[in-house]
């Protein structure tokens, strides 16, 4: 085992000559397994997709897994621009912006805080750092239902303070604004996770690099910017994916703190389309609406995924 540290020996054994075939079989097995699991994950999407292109008649009378006989794009158009969210029937297109202006700041703030916290907790350890981390970690487990009311009370008081400010100095500083409230709530209940992700990623990051930079006179933030950040791409991807998804899909806080018309986020709108208690349920429109509502998240997955490359650590060590 200690051989790991020794530099590469050029004479190290090559694969046996029969290795070519074994390798091919290996590749086939790997691709086969990956494809198989892809099928498992795609199954419900398939159901949703075919349903979204069917007419209601076909949904009610046909098989759920069959392809649409007469594909129609109407459900998508309806979900986008016509379906009713409460009493307003203008589709779900208008709710993207409400969600985006809440999600983007919340994700950026919570992710950066998480990265900084993780950096402090691993590379600038102080007495009690582990306890602090443990406490922040355990915070992940608080059930959101039990913070709903006390948080509402606090946000309400803050909002009244905002009104007072408004009347006295002319600006409420955003206090009491429901989008600002949601950003705050999501940052509060997100930093536990973001800190966890970064702390555990940086845990495996060679401390020696940081020490060396310190010796060279680099400051706290310089080290963070020049050494940690460039090597954190994969965990940034994971954290952003996690935060973006959770905040985008949050319903509980969104409905309780921002259900009022103008700031209603996408999830609340989608829920109002889908979760109807009466009337013929338009499954095709619902499925289309769900997919439209998920587009930004999917986009993040694909775009962020590009940065999922292997870290540059090896290079950093030598440079």
């Amino acid at each position: 085992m200690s051989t790991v540290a020794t530099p590469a020996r050029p004479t190290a054994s090559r694969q046996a000559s029969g290795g070519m075939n074994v390798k091919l079989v290996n590749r086939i097995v790997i691709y086969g397994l990956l494809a198989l699991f892809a099928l498992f994950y795609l199954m419900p999407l398939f159901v949703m997709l075919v349903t979204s292109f069917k007419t209601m008649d076909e949904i009610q009378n046909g098989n759920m897994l069959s392809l649409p006989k007469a594909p129609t794009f109407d459900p998508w158009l309806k979900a986008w621009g016509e379906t009713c969210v409460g009493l307003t029937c203008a589709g779900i297109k208008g709710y993207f912006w409400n969600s985006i202006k809440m999600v983007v700041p919340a994700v950026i703030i919570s992710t950066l805080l998480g990265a900084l916290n993780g950096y402090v907790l691993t590379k600038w350890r102080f007495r009690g750092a582990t306890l602090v981390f443990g406490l922040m970690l355990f915070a992940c487990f608080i059930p959101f239902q039990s913070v709903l009311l006390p948080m509402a009370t606090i946000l309400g008081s803050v909002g009244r303070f905002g009104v007072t400010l408004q009347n006295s100095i002319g600006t409420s500083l955003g206090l009491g604004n429901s989008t600002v409230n949601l950003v705050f709530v999501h940052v509060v209940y997100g930093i536990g996770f973001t800190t966890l992700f970064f702390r555990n990623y940086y845990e495996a990051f060679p401390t020696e690099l940081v020490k060396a930079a310190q010796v060279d006179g680099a400051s706290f933030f310089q080290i963070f910017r020049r050494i940690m950040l460039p090597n954190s791409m994969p965990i940034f991807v994971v954290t952003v994916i996690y935060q973006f998804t959770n905040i985008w899909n949050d319903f509980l806080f969104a409905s309780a703190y921002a259900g009022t018309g103008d700031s209603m986020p996408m999830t609340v709108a989608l829920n109002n389309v889908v979760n109807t208690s009466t009337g013929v349920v338009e499954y095709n429109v619902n499925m289309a609406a769900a997919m439209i509502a998920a587009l930004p998240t999917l986009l993040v997955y694909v775009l962020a995924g590009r940065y999922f490359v292997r870290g540059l650590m090896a290079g950093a060590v030598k440079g």
Partner: protein
Amino acid sequence: MSTVATSQIKLTPEHARPRASVRSRLQDALPKLVLAPSFAITIVFVYGFILWTIYLSFTNSKTFPSYVISGSRAYQRLWGWTFDTDPPSSWYTSITNMGIFGFLYILICLALGLFLAILLDQKIRGEGVLRPIYLYPMALSFIVTGVAWKWFLDPGLGLEQTLHQWGWTSFHFDWIKNKDFVIYTVVIAGVWQASGFIMAMFLAGLRGIDGEIMKAAQIDGATTFQLYRRIVIPLLRPIFLSAFIVLAHLAIKSYDLVVALTSGGPGGSAWLPSNFMYEYTFKRNEMAVGSASAVIMLMTIVAIIVPYLYSELREKPR
């Protein structure tokens, strides 16, 4: 295992400790200052609210919070329900389901996530396509994917009916309608939703591992299996911790999953503690009981997580 750490130390030249100066003293305080706001809001908005919940559990709060202490009746009721096994009380159903669901969900997600991440890390062509395919279930709101799963698992609409149409008439799969098996369908849908993200976490971990170490071991003649078992997986330990925490929290908070997929299951047989808590706090206007159940949930988590955290986090000799 410790060899990896030594190897890294050897890569860096040994330097003497920098001398204390004003600047370095500032630098000493800076990390704590950076951490302080996050820690402070956690203390107030998490631990403060936990105390609030504990307080409420000893009151007679019904529709709204009441601040008059009235004893431990809520806990007594929960304690009584814990032993109501025939017919099972909703609380008993919730906690036993939590055991089944939590165990299977976490275990399968971890295993599947790691497995897929390792497969995907074999320089796969089309990784860019496969990754989002495994991940996308996270993106979709379960209020809709729940409907798709519900159809798929419904014997009259989904898999069973389709296979019957294809001629396999003896096929039988009605777990979602069966009070004893419905919780397993929740596991299936839950794994489908979360395992892709766990895969991404492990993949990030794998990508963070110094390629040199892997190369060195390979050149040394370690088989792929040995390489992963002896070197890679131990290096992923911190990721396991992250993944475990994420999964455990998802498991404990799985509320939508049960409601969208099963509407609570036949006779409430798919309930999880979060359903119980929501029902009692908001629907049944028994806030004290809801709070008490939240406290018990948190205490159970403490009992399970704290030893694990302790073993993971205690300062290891470097």
